[in-house]
């Protein structure tokens, strides 16, 4: 009964001129999203050192889904050479991500333009 999570990869250019990989999510971000999200993440090449997660196509996120994002941030931090940013959250989920502390480990931006401007 969960809407399957779709993850689409695309690239963009940051204000600084460097390449950025965007993982755009659609559907639900819940416990059932784990494989889709982690497979997309593990499929990123080693050169993808700037990653943005696009939540603008997502309308339901629960705490198990946020835990998957934390898992990803943990792996990125362990790698020591990859920054992960987040954009496209609704104001409500922006608040929720901040409440649980995700904002400490991922730069949160309102939209893609703002996210790219900061990289």
């Amino acid at each position, binding site marked *: 009964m969960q809407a399957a999570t779709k993850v689409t990869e695309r690239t963009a250019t940051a204000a600084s001129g460097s390449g950025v990989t965007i993982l755009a999510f659609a559907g639900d971000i819940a416990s059932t999203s784990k494989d889709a999200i982690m497979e997309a993440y593990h499929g990123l090449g080693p050169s993808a050192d700037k990653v943005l997660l696009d939540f603008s196509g997502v309308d339901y996120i629960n705490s198990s889904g946020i835990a998957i994002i934390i898992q990803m941030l943990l792996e990125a931090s362990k790698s020591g050479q990859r920054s992960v940013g987040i954009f496209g959250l609704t104001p409500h989920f922006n608040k929720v991500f901040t409440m649980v*502390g995700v904002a400490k480990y991922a730069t949160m931006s309102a939209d893609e333009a703002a996210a790219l401007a900061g990289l």
Partner: protein
Amino acid sequence: MKNGSCVEVRLPSELGFEKVALSTAASMASLMGFSNDRVEDLKTAVAEACINAIEHGNQLDDSLSVGVMLSTTDDGLEVRVMDDGLGVGEAPAAPDMDRKMMGEEDPRGMGMFLIQALVDEAEWHKGPPGRSFVRLVIRLDKENK
């Protein structure tokens, strides 16, 4: 709308159905005049409470259902989410993102924290099996602050 009006929902113990409860609660809160912001808070709180009832309380057992009672009170909306488990006492400590990022704490374990953070009252009651519930309240007077 009359004080004491009550809507009851029964859900199967299957993940995903928390979204049905969330829609019911959102609709009732909107009718009562809660702002969209508060309705969003309630949606997440009700979803997390139902997920816990489905997963931890009823342990995904097909034969058990989760009960959600939505009641209007003098000054707000009270929600009880009931399951057939043994219940849980107080909410655990707030998630510690630094420890999670060190791999020292499970990345999960944020549901009860979010519930408490998003509604005006949250209380967990351990009961005899089938009578464990969490009680959530959002108040209309908070709207005007």
